[in-house]
């Protein structure tokens, strides 16, 4: 029996816990102190953790079930939109047009009443459920159709990409009722707490860290369960698993849906910390970028995915600020490097450098 928390996961969770406790404390230090953390960095760190959570979500379905989704950005964005809609409603009459019912962009477009799909989003619990349910439902329906007709491998990747592309085009339309090109922004507060207050930011950051830790534990629990073993079997030899009598599509749909809901959760936590959600999040390129986080960290490791996301996103922030022209070269180079030289990512590299005790469970053929 594999332990729920092995060494790697334990170390990561401990580090996460330490950061979660220390970072808010560091913001309270006097600004002269060397350890002082400017409070504007808190939402940034929260954003990184959201990406890490997104990477864990993708790793769960790609690393363990072999479902390379190039559309996970869509689930992330849908979760974000659900939360954004709630924050939009919470602005209430404080908007530019001071309409208590309609968000600004609807007034601007000359709409007189709220579209039906915006009903209920004035309640936080409803928005929170939707942030999980909408991506989950989409993934369930999509996965149900795809896996039942045995669409897998690159075909699945291509149609998930088409899915997020279609959503991108749809959300760009003004008459969809999601703010069109500009998306949703100008949020004021959440549950009555101002989004610009340092305490709210810290609370959101801590919540994100808890969500990340919790989802990693959940994903770990899934992968070490019996179902997790079947998933790995599906990944490595789909037809054989089917011949052994397992209903491959049920396992795949299950893990795909759970993964999409995690992505939705990441999106929902992302939006209040970043302050905007727009259709650009649906861009296929974003979804492919998530893949490189996972690939760089090491797929099928969960911890690796989270680390990969943090490393790449930090690299991106640094490069786009200092050498904007180099970022795409670096990202492209990373893709090539990872596929050619690091098939098991950074964690795989560590495993290889260590004296080998047991065969790592993370060998992944295509």
């Amino acid at each position: 029996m594999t332990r729920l928390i092995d060494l790697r996961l334990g170390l990561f969770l401990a580090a996460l816990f330490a950061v979660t406790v220390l970072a808010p404390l560091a913001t309270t230090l006097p600004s002269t102190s060397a350890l002082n953390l400017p409070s504007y960095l808190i939402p940034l760190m929260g954003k990184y953790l959201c990406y890490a959570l997104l990477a864990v979500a993708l790793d769960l379905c790609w690393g363990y079930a072999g479902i390379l989704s190039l559309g996970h950005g869509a689930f992330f964005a849908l979760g974000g939109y659900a939360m954004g809609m709630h924050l939009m409603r919470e602005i209430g009459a404080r908007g530019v047009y001071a309409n208590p019912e309609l968000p600004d962009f609807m007034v601007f477009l000359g709409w007189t009443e709220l579209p039906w799909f915006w009903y209920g989003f004035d309640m936080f619990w409803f928005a929170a459920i939707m942030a999980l349910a909408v991506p989950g439902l989409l993934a369930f329906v999509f996965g149900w159709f795809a896996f039942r007709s045995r669409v897998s491998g690159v075909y699945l990747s291509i149609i998930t990409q088409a899915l997020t592309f279609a959503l991108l085009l749809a959300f760009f339309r003004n008459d969809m009722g999601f703010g069109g090109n500009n998306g949703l922004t100008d949020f004021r507060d959440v549950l009555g707490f101002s989004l610009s207050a340092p305490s709210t930011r810290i609370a959101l950051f801590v919540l994100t860290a808890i969500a990340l830790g919790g989802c990693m534990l959940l994903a770990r629990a899934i992968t070490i369960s019996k179902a997790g073993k079947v998933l790995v079997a599906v990944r490595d030899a789909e037809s054989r698993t089917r011949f052994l009598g397992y209903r491959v599509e049920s396992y795949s749909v299950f893990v795909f849906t759970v993964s999409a809901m995690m992505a939705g959760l990441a999106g929902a936590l992302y939006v209040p910390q970043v302050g905007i959600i727009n259709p650009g999040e649906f861009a296929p390129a974003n979804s492919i970028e998530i893949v490189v986080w996972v690939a760089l960290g090491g797929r099928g490791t969960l911890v690796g995915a989270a680390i990969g996301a943090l490393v790449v996103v930090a690299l991106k922030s640094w490069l786009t600020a200092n050498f904007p022209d180099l970022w795409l070269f670096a990202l492209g180079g990373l893709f090539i490097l990872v596929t050619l030289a690091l098939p098991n990512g950074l964690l795989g590299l560590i495993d290889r450098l260590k004296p080998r005790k047991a065969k790592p469970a993370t060998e992944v053929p295509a």
Partner: protein
Amino acid sequence: MPFRPLTLIAAFCLAVVLPFIASAQTLEELIARLPDGNFNDRAAIVAQIAETGDPRAAQVLDALLEGELEQRNADGRFVRVTGSRNNQTAVDVLTGEDLGPVARRSTEAVRVNNALRRSIRTALGVLTLMDPDPARRLAAAEAALRSPSADQVDALAEAMATETNAAIRTAQTRAHAAAVLASDLPLEAKLDAVAVIGAANAQIVQQTLNAYRNAAEPELAEAVGEALAAAESRQRMWSQAQNLWFGLSLGSVLLLAAIGLAITFGVMGVINLAHGELVMLGAYTTYTVQQVIRTNAPEYFGYSLAIAIPLAFLLVGAVGVLIERGIVRHLYGRPLETLLGTWGVSLILQQAVRSIYGPTNREVGTPDWMSGAWQIGELTLTGPRIAIVLFSLTVFFGLLLLMKYSAFGLQMRAVTQNRPMAANLGIRTGYVDALTFGLGAGIAGLAGVALSQIDNVSPNLGQGYIIDSFLVVVFGGVGNLWGTFAAALSLGVANKFLEPWAGAVLGKIVILVFIILFIQKRPRGLFPQRGRAAEG
């Protein structure tokens, strides 16, 4: 009354002989009589001027119409005076001689009123309708059709009678019919006119007949209604034809973009996400060739595409071989890794082009021989679109022949069907792989040359096509060139037929959703390859 026969004879003489006398008058004599008499007399003279057929008549009437025809007090010469109050210059209307500046009170204007202006315009219309230059005759007839006036009925009838050019006569006949409708001629003539107009294209029918929809005569109103309805249904048919044409042209663009993928993905099984960027490289090759020609030998600009086509094929093909040897070769049998690796290549190519050429759109010119348009009925076919349709068909069938009848094609098929066996028979599989990938890339380069004619050449050019071309290949059935062909054309046409009622974006979404659902239903595409292999 004893004098009656005499007056009759006199009147007869006047009626018959006078026109001859009048037409025998020269332009000079007529113009000299212009300042005399009242406006009605002038109108008569204007008509006579028009009938002289003198080539200078038009400029005289034009000057008169603008109120710029004046008579010099000193010598009685007729001049055209232009310029502001204190800075007037005169030109002799008859000889065109420049007479330099004139003092303000040294000339006397020939006055015109609105009624006279109308007759001048009619006279000018007649003049240009009979102009020796066919282009001006046509323009005059079309102008007359646009603003029909009852005054022109006779002039147009006369012009029709002598016209020899069929196209101009058609235009004149229509203009005549429109003028008849505007006149108070009897009902039969108007009904005939409606029939004549009804045969013209829908736009003319609408602009001419709409005003008579509620004509006083019920028969006329009915005939007009019928003609309008007929024109509308004809227009609907033509717009379907137009949609079909746009669809085919979009389809051939998709075909061009997808053929290269059909080779790398369909035949080799390699997912090449850098395909769009290879297309972009082809477009930039065209741009560079044109820049070099523009700066060094602008007179050869017409050949720029002829140079760019082979160059793009070789250059982009070479890039493809490099990608295959450098990256893809190591990833055979691992499709998902190939996908990621080539995505990396695409990012690098995009940024490289952005660094070299800048992020803005580049202007790629269309050679003269390709611009222009053909009109078939109410369908306009523009040069670049026709060229692209023909080009993509050429590329497609060329590729088909290559695959089927050349030694290389045979080796390629052998390697993809059974690699170890092909190797055993002495085929250098690595070599064939590299060339096949290079071929797919080269065709992407060709697509780039074609797309540079109709799309913005920017570093993002390829991104717009990559998802579409993958869907085309997957929809058509992997490994099947004919499937790709059918898929590209049918998707292009479907897209254009959806656009009018769903809008461009929604139409595209509908297509995407349709393909997503279709793949669920038939994962192997429209024309799946038959075989016994079960995967895994």
